[in-house]
Protein backbone atom coordinates (compact mmCIF):
# COMPACT_ATOMS: atom_id res chain seq x y z
CA UNK A 1 0.00 0.00 0.00
CA UNK A 2 2.56 2.57 1.13
CA UNK A 3 5.60 1.48 -0.84
CA UNK A 4 8.86 3.27 -0.12
CA UNK A 5 10.58 4.46 -3.28
CA UNK A 6 14.23 5.44 -3.18
CA UNK A 7 14.69 8.97 -4.46
CA UNK A 8 18.24 10.38 -4.21
CA UNK A 9 17.23 14.02 -4.54
CA UNK A 10 14.68 13.93 -1.74
CA UNK A 11 17.05 11.93 0.46
CA UNK A 12 19.93 14.33 -0.14
CA UNK A 13 17.86 17.44 0.55
CA UNK A 14 16.39 15.91 3.70
CA UNK A 15 19.82 14.92 4.97
CA UNK A 16 21.05 18.48 4.48
CA UNK A 17 17.98 20.19 5.97
CA UNK A 18 17.32 17.89 8.93
CA UNK A 19 20.32 18.92 11.10
CA UNK A 20 19.45 22.58 10.69
CA UNK A 21 15.88 21.94 11.82
CA UNK A 22 17.30 20.06 14.81
CA UNK A 23 19.64 22.94 15.66
CA UNK A 24 16.79 25.43 15.42
CA UNK A 25 14.69 23.18 17.66
CA UNK A 26 17.42 23.20 20.32
CA UNK A 27 17.61 26.98 19.99
CA UNK A 28 13.85 27.27 20.48
CA UNK A 29 13.97 25.05 23.58
CA UNK A 30 16.98 26.64 25.27
CA UNK A 31 16.16 30.21 24.25
CA UNK A 32 12.62 29.99 25.57
CA UNK A 33 13.68 32.16 28.50
CA UNK A 34 14.32 35.14 26.26
CA UNK A 35 12.20 34.77 23.15
CA UNK A 36 8.98 33.08 22.08
CA UNK A 37 9.31 29.34 22.19
CA UNK A 38 9.66 26.59 24.71
CA UNK A 39 9.32 22.89 25.18
CA UNK A 40 6.24 22.20 23.10
CA UNK A 41 7.38 24.13 20.04
CA UNK A 42 10.97 22.88 20.20
CA UNK A 43 9.85 19.29 20.70
CA UNK A 44 7.61 19.51 17.66
CA UNK A 45 10.51 20.83 15.58
CA UNK A 46 12.77 18.01 16.80
CA UNK A 47 10.09 15.50 15.84
CA UNK A 48 9.79 17.19 12.44
CA UNK A 49 13.51 16.73 11.75
CA UNK A 50 13.32 13.05 12.75
CA UNK A 51 10.16 12.44 10.71
CA UNK A 52 11.76 14.09 7.66
CA UNK A 53 14.48 11.43 7.68
CA UNK A 54 11.84 8.77 8.26
CA UNK A 55 9.87 9.89 5.23
CA UNK A 56 12.88 10.36 2.96
CA UNK A 57 15.00 7.32 3.84
CA UNK A 58 12.29 4.89 4.84
CA UNK A 59 11.46 3.61 8.27
CA UNK A 60 14.01 0.79 8.16
CA UNK A 61 17.09 2.97 7.65
CA UNK A 62 15.77 5.64 10.02
CA UNK A 63 15.98 3.09 12.82
CA UNK A 64 19.71 3.83 12.87
CA UNK A 65 18.92 7.41 13.87
CA UNK A 66 16.08 6.91 16.32
CA UNK A 67 14.78 3.41 17.10
CA UNK A 68 11.03 2.92 17.27
CA UNK A 69 11.40 1.09 20.59
CA UNK A 70 12.70 4.29 22.20
CA UNK A 71 9.56 6.32 21.58
CA UNK A 72 7.38 5.49 24.54
CA UNK A 73 10.20 5.18 27.14
CA UNK A 74 11.66 8.56 26.18
CA UNK A 75 8.21 10.14 26.40
CA UNK A 76 7.76 8.72 29.87
CA UNK A 77 11.24 9.96 30.78
CA UNK A 78 10.27 13.48 29.74
CA UNK A 79 7.21 13.45 31.99
CA UNK A 80 9.38 11.99 34.77
CA UNK A 81 11.88 14.86 34.43
CA UNK A 82 9.05 17.36 34.84
CA UNK A 83 7.50 15.47 37.74
CA UNK A 84 10.90 14.88 39.31
CA UNK A 85 11.72 18.60 39.25
CA UNK A 86 8.49 19.29 41.10
CA UNK A 87 8.87 16.39 43.50
CA UNK A 88 12.46 17.27 44.39
CA UNK A 89 11.26 20.69 45.45
CA UNK A 90 8.59 18.96 47.54
CA UNK A 91 11.20 16.74 49.23
CA UNK A 92 13.44 19.69 50.10
CA UNK A 93 10.82 21.60 51.96
CA UNK A 94 8.87 23.58 49.39
CA UNK A 95 5.55 23.09 47.69
CA UNK A 96 5.14 20.80 44.69
CA UNK A 97 6.64 22.51 41.59
CA UNK A 98 8.06 25.37 43.67
CA UNK A 99 11.47 25.43 41.98
CA UNK A 100 12.88 27.86 44.52
CA UNK A 101 13.60 24.90 46.80
CA UNK A 102 15.66 22.85 44.34
CA UNK A 103 18.86 21.59 46.02
CA UNK A 104 21.49 23.46 43.97
CA UNK A 105 24.09 25.29 46.02
CA UNK A 106 25.07 28.89 45.47
CA UNK A 107 21.98 30.17 43.67
CA UNK A 108 19.29 32.50 44.87
CA UNK A 109 15.65 31.47 44.80
CA UNK A 110 14.97 33.46 41.63
CA UNK A 111 17.89 31.85 39.78
CA UNK A 112 16.74 28.45 41.00
CA UNK A 113 13.34 29.17 39.49
CA UNK A 114 15.02 30.02 36.19
CA UNK A 115 16.89 26.70 36.36
CA UNK A 116 13.69 24.85 37.19
CA UNK A 117 11.92 26.38 34.22
CA UNK A 118 14.78 25.19 31.98
CA UNK A 119 14.56 21.64 33.36
CA UNK A 120 10.83 21.62 32.83
CA UNK A 121 11.17 22.83 29.24
CA UNK A 122 13.73 20.10 28.50
CA UNK A 123 11.35 17.49 29.89
CA UNK A 124 8.45 18.81 27.84
CA UNK A 125 10.55 18.93 24.66
CA UNK A 126 11.81 15.38 25.13
CA UNK A 127 8.32 14.03 25.77
CA UNK A 128 6.73 15.84 22.82
CA UNK A 129 9.47 14.73 20.42
CA UNK A 130 9.38 11.09 21.48
CA UNK A 131 5.60 10.84 21.52
CA UNK A 132 5.15 12.42 18.09
CA UNK A 133 7.69 10.04 16.55
CA UNK A 134 6.09 7.13 18.40
CA UNK A 135 2.64 8.00 17.04
CA UNK A 136 4.06 8.08 13.50
CA UNK A 137 5.68 4.69 14.03
CA UNK A 138 2.49 3.24 15.46
CA UNK A 139 0.50 4.47 12.47
CA UNK A 140 3.05 2.92 10.11
CA UNK A 141 3.16 -0.40 11.93
CA UNK A 142 0.13 -1.87 10.16
CA UNK A 143 1.62 -1.29 6.70
CA UNK A 144 4.99 -2.95 7.17
CA UNK A 145 4.18 -6.32 5.59
CA UNK A 146 2.32 -5.09 2.51
Amino acid at each position, binding site marked *: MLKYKYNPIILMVSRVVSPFIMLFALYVIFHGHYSPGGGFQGGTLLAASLLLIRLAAGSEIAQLQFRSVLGTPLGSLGVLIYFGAGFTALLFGGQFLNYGFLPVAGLTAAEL*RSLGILMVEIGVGLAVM*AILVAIYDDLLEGYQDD
Partner: protein
Amino acid sequence: MKAVNHLLLIFFGALLIYASLGLPNRGDSEAVMHREKSPAGSPGASSYYIRNAYKDAQTPNMVTVILADYRGYDTLGEETVILTAGLICYLILRRNGTSSRRREETGEEGADAQI
Protein backbone atom coordinates in the same frame (compact mmCIF):
# COMPACT_ATOMS: atom_id res chain seq x y z
CA MET B 1 -35.68 17.40 9.23
CA LYS B 2 -32.67 18.76 7.34
CA ALA B 3 -34.22 22.21 7.17
CA VAL B 4 -34.72 22.15 10.94
CA ASN B 5 -31.07 21.23 11.42
CA HIS B 6 -29.91 24.08 9.20
CA LEU B 7 -32.24 26.54 10.93
CA LEU B 8 -30.88 25.44 14.31
CA LEU B 9 -27.30 25.90 13.11
CA ILE B 10 -28.04 29.37 11.75
CA PHE B 11 -29.82 30.32 14.96
CA PHE B 12 -26.93 29.09 17.08
CA GLY B 13 -24.39 30.90 14.93
CA ALA B 14 -26.39 34.12 15.15
CA LEU B 15 -26.58 33.67 18.92
CA LEU B 16 -22.79 33.29 19.16
CA ILE B 17 -22.22 36.38 17.01
CA TYR B 18 -24.66 38.34 19.15
CA ALA B 19 -22.90 37.16 22.32
CA SER B 20 -19.48 38.13 20.94
CA LEU B 21 -20.70 41.74 20.61
CA GLY B 22 -20.72 41.95 24.40
CA LEU B 23 -17.04 41.08 24.78
CA PRO B 24 -14.63 43.90 25.73
CA ASN B 25 -12.37 45.33 23.05
CA ARG B 26 -8.86 43.97 22.74
CA GLY B 27 -6.47 45.86 24.99
CA ASP B 28 -9.28 47.73 26.71
CA SER B 29 -7.79 48.90 30.01
CA GLU B 30 -11.25 49.40 31.50
CA ALA B 31 -12.23 45.72 31.06
CA VAL B 32 -12.66 43.78 34.28
CA MET B 33 -9.82 41.34 33.59
CA HIS B 34 -7.35 44.15 32.91
CA ARG B 35 -8.09 46.23 35.98
CA GLU B 36 -5.66 46.57 38.84
CA LYS B 37 -8.24 45.27 41.27
CA SER B 38 -10.98 42.72 40.74
CA PRO B 39 -14.58 43.77 41.49
CA ALA B 40 -14.22 42.07 44.89
CA GLY B 41 -11.28 44.33 45.75
CA SER B 42 -8.45 41.80 45.56
CA PRO B 43 -5.41 42.60 43.36
CA GLY B 44 -5.73 41.29 39.81
CA ALA B 45 -3.56 38.40 38.65
CA SER B 46 -2.35 39.93 35.37
CA SER B 47 -0.84 43.04 36.90
CA TYR B 48 0.90 40.87 39.52
CA TYR B 49 2.49 38.76 36.78
CA ILE B 50 3.62 41.80 34.81
CA ARG B 51 5.23 43.38 37.86
CA ASN B 52 6.83 40.35 39.51
CA ALA B 53 7.62 37.82 36.76
CA TYR B 54 11.21 38.97 36.31
CA LYS B 55 11.80 39.47 40.02
CA ASP B 56 10.51 36.01 40.86
CA ALA B 57 12.23 33.93 38.23
CA GLN B 58 15.04 35.99 36.58
CA THR B 59 13.51 35.19 33.19
CA PRO B 60 12.74 38.00 30.75
CA ASN B 61 10.04 36.07 28.91
CA MET B 62 6.90 36.56 30.98
CA VAL B 63 4.94 33.93 29.07
CA THR B 64 7.49 31.24 29.93
CA VAL B 65 7.38 32.15 33.61
CA ILE B 66 3.58 31.96 33.69
CA LEU B 67 3.51 28.72 31.71
CA ALA B 68 6.21 26.82 33.56
CA ASP B 69 6.26 28.37 37.02
CA TYR B 70 3.03 30.08 38.06
CA ARG B 71 0.89 27.63 36.09
CA GLY B 72 3.17 24.62 36.45
CA TYR B 73 0.38 22.21 37.29
CA ASP B 74 -1.38 23.08 34.07
CA THR B 75 1.68 22.38 31.93
CA LEU B 76 2.31 19.11 33.76
CA GLY B 77 -1.26 18.12 32.91
CA GLU B 78 -0.76 19.06 29.26
CA GLU B 79 2.34 16.92 29.04
CA THR B 80 0.51 14.03 30.66
CA VAL B 81 -2.24 14.39 28.06
CA ILE B 82 0.36 14.08 25.28
CA LEU B 83 1.89 11.03 26.93
CA THR B 84 -1.56 9.47 27.30
CA ALA B 85 -2.29 10.07 23.62
CA GLY B 86 0.97 8.34 22.69
CA LEU B 87 0.29 5.39 24.98
CA ILE B 88 -3.23 4.97 23.59
CA CYS B 89 -1.89 5.03 20.02
CA TYR B 90 0.60 2.37 21.11
CA LEU B 91 -2.11 0.19 22.65
CA ILE B 92 -4.59 0.50 19.79
CA LEU B 93 -2.37 0.55 16.70
CA ARG B 94 0.50 -1.76 17.60
CA ARG B 95 0.01 -5.27 16.36
CA ASN B 96 -0.34 -7.89 19.05
CA GLY B 97 3.17 -9.04 19.92
CA THR B 98 2.39 -12.73 20.30
CA SER B 99 0.55 -13.10 16.98
CA SER B 100 3.23 -11.34 14.93
CA ARG B 101 5.95 -13.42 16.57
CA ARG B 102 4.03 -16.59 15.76
CA ARG B 103 3.75 -15.53 12.13
CA GLU B 104 7.48 -14.98 11.96
CA GLU B 105 8.20 -18.39 13.47
CA THR B 106 6.02 -20.31 11.06
CA GLY B 107 7.04 -18.08 8.17
CA GLU B 108 3.63 -18.20 6.60
CA GLU B 109 2.02 -15.24 4.87
CA GLY B 110 -1.39 -15.67 6.40
CA ALA B 111 -4.62 -14.18 5.15
CA ASP B 112 -4.60 -11.72 8.02
CA ALA B 113 -1.42 -10.13 6.65
CA GLN B 114 -3.45 -8.72 3.78
CA ILE B 115 -5.65 -6.60 5.98
